């Protein structure tokens, strides 16, 4: 009983600090392609927007707020956003995590680190050269791949084709 008491006390302390600093991210999950694959082919009723990006990719950073906005604007329409970072693994602590905290990224972020690029780039989409930014939008009925940058309106227009 005493033990439980201590834990609950600690929890409260933690909660307070979180409130003050807003949620600080301290780690990002790393996937290889086989681990990422299930997230690219879910067959529930949601629409998934998968954006391939990196902190060093200027056009990716520019369009990131549009993905964040889509996530917010369409949250009640069953739209989910996943940001797949292609940052170099050694840059995760130095660049990726500070970037996520600075910009208060709300979408889920994972790191894709897999040497077999020649295999998984094709597997994700036959037409993808490997250039980023690139975006995959899919539902159980439809699937589209975009090797391009997005403005918000263009992104929304694409998402709407999945909703209608």
């Amino acid at each position, binding site marked *: 009983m005493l033990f439980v008491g201590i834990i609950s006390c600690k929890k409260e302390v933690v909660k307070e600090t979180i409130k003050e600093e807003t949620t600080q991210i301290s780690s990002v999950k790393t996937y290889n392609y086989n681990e990422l694959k299930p997230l690219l082919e879910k067959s529930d009723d949601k629409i998934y927007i998968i954006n391939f990006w*990196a902190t*060093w990719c*200027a056009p990716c950073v520019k369009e990131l707020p549009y993905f964040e906005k889509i996530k917010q604007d369409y949250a009640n329409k069953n739209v989910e956003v996943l940001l797949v970072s292609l940052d*170099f693994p050694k840059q995760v602590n130095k660049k990726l995590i500070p970037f996520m905290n600075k910009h208060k990224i709300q979408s889920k972020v994972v790191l894709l680190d897999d040497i077999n*690029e020649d295999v998984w780039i094709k597997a994700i989409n036959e037409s993808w*050269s490997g250039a980023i*930014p690139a975006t995959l939008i899919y539902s159980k009925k439809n699937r589209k791949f975009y090797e391009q940058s997005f403005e918000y309106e263009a992104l929304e227009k694409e998402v709407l084709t999945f909703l209608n």
Partner: protein
Amino acid sequence: MKTLKTATILAILSFFTLAFTVKTDGYKVGDKIENFKLKNIDDKMVSLSDYKAAKGFIIIFTCNMCPYSVANEDRIIALDAKYKTKGYPVIAINPNDPNVSTGDGFEDMKVRAAEKRFTFPYLFDAKQDVFPKFGALKTPHVYIVTKNTMKVEYIGAIDNSSKNADAVTEKYVEDAVDALLVGKKPEKTETRAIGCSIKVDEKTYK
């Protein structure tokens, strides 16, 4: 009514064909390439026809700023060191618009080439009219061309570990050039790797 419908369908179909062929334009493996003439970092113009003794070329679209290009710089230098004397020199081309990609200007290219002691031409596609002919989409993006036929023999990545040279287990470009040097076709003619999209000014480009 029926003809109108057919006409509409045809119009839609042709639109889609157009829309989808724009991006896939550019050389494929087996295509004959046009010669080009671009300014090198020593301010002299370089053209493929200048290379009288070459058997072919390792043409690499690359730049200063893309981390994947930077991660491959030493490997590009090593390719030139190994294959220039065998008749396959490296020709590097920066396809980026420096107004969109700060640090990729002609003067920046001179600085980087001096720092890294590039042994090969580092050309600037200032009008951005060479990379679209190749269909290059990113940096780095490699095209191996034989000189007697001027045909593309390989398109893709340098090796199978673009971001970490220590983990390479398959050297695509070396394997392809080695095959060509003994009169064979490369086993792998197309490979892919992550890279940075080529930077164009959306407002003024084309």
